[in-house]
């Protein structure tokens, strides 16, 4: 990562920290943030060092709650996006497209509310989103963003599955990811019919056409990509 992409927090003034090797219990911090976006500040976490209390939300991947909260964060993002699209779709959307974007909106709301209830007191708070890079009046902009969210969502669930320790939660993640893949295929086909599973276009997400494999990304990579749409600072620990 280039230095100019790093937004270094005052309390992490020691540049040498960034040269330290990343241990298992590495400390990763993602900040959505200002215009240029940012945002991955990573530092080796010294045991004898006291970090000041962090702002924003913390995803602690030490157990399944961390993975579920990670999914909850992504569903919050998707739901917020589709709520905005469905409330005022681009004028060029057909009646059928408007109806299906309503459907998708409610699917994402259902996912979001499910995680909220399932996590109960362990749930993270509501995230503040930043959709300033999306022109909601422009179909191309909206469809491009929708595709990005869906393909990323699929890669996120695929990459996080192996972290899940509880059978029921693993199956639940599976129940949701295939619906996201159905969305992704539908949106891709609107953009370009036949591109529903154009795996060559998703290599950056970990897809592999020769193996017929969809994307799969680790949470740090996913949050790095999603970061530009999230204002709330997301701290990741125990990844």
């Amino acid at each position, binding site marked *: 990562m280039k230095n100019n992409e790093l937004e270094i927090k005052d309390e992490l003034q020691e540049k040498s920290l960034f040269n330290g090797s990343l241990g298992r219990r590495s400390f990763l911090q993602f900040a959505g943030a200002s215009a240029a976006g940012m945002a991955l500040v990573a530092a080796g976490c010294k045991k004898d060092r006291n970090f000041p209390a962090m702002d924003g939300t913390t995803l602690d991947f030490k157990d399944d709650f961390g993975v579920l909260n990670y999914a909850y964060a992504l569903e919050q993002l998707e739901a917020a996006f589709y709520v905005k699209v469905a409330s005022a779709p681009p004028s060029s959307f057909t009646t059928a497209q408007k109806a299906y974007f309503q459907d998708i909106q409610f699917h994402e709301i259902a996912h979001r509310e499910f995680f909220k*209830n399932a996590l109960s007191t362990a749930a993270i708070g509501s995230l503040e989103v930043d959709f300033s890079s999306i022109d909601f009046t422009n179909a191309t902009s909206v469809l491009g963003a929708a595709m990005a969210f869906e393909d990323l969502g699929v890669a996120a669930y695929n990459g996080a599955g192996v972290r899940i320790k509880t059978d029921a939660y*693993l199956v639940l993640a599976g129940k949701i990811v295939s*619906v996201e893949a159905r969305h992704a295929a539908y949106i891709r086909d609107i953009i370009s019919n036949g591109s529903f599973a154009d795996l060559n276009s998703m290599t950056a997400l*970990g897809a592999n056409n020769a193996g017929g494999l969809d994307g799969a990304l680790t949470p740090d990579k996913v949050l790095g990509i999603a970061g530009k749409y999230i204002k709330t600072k997301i701290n990741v620990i125990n990844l």
Partner: protein
Amino acid sequence: MNIVNILEEIEKVDGEIYERLSPRRSAMKDFYSMGKKIAFAAAPLALGSMFTKAYGQTLPTAVVNTLNFALSLEYLEYHFYNHALLGTDVTFAYPTTAAKAAITTIRDHEKAHVDLLKGALGGSARAEITYAMTDFTAGGTFGDVYQNYLTFLKVALGFEDTGVRAYKGQATVLKGNAVLTTALQIHSVEARHASHIRQMLAAAGASIKPWISLGAGGIANDTGVPQVDPVYAGESLDVQAGVTITGINGQSGVTKAVAVESFDEPLDTASVVTIANLFLRTGSKL
């Protein structure tokens, strides 16, 4: 295909991949030198064989069984589509070049899955299923499957939605294993296929969404094809992990249909075997 990228991906879920590989340097060396020579199409096979060497006999029996089960389904899907593209007894016409291109894309993915699974299983791979062992009319239930484009799409949808449910049903067997990630990557590709086949059916006049909805009269099968009822058994569930999804937290827009659409259900091994056996001839059944 970016092999280094794949190794990096594996490293994320199996930090010991290089350790596993290193005592078998020859395997790596063979693989890399082979990589220079072989065509891209053969790469998954080579990759699979490297995994076999890396993991050796460490694949638990349950995982081997699940991968072989998946391999059986992929063989079926591959032959179903491949015959639709090449079979001399296929008399229906694809309505558009895009339709034929989509079936070709799906056929190619199924072939890639067959090769990948075969490679990963190595010597533990089940015997090949040939086209001659299959019967895609399902004993006459879909008698005009290769003469009627709509029938063909309906059977295709049955295969894709079954495939998605089958992989989901095997997830817990693979829990925590590096193979799970690969299985999930196949699983979501099958879901993309299902979504597209549903759109092809809609384009051909069927009333069907890209996602599995609630069927007419509240039944689980939303396709309007009663012959595929077993494919959708249990899909009308709207309670997830004890949480009722319909109307959740006062969300009136989350109707029962939305709740059903939002979560795809798994299917257990026995149910999938029953469905798969409809398309396999006596003597070749699972």
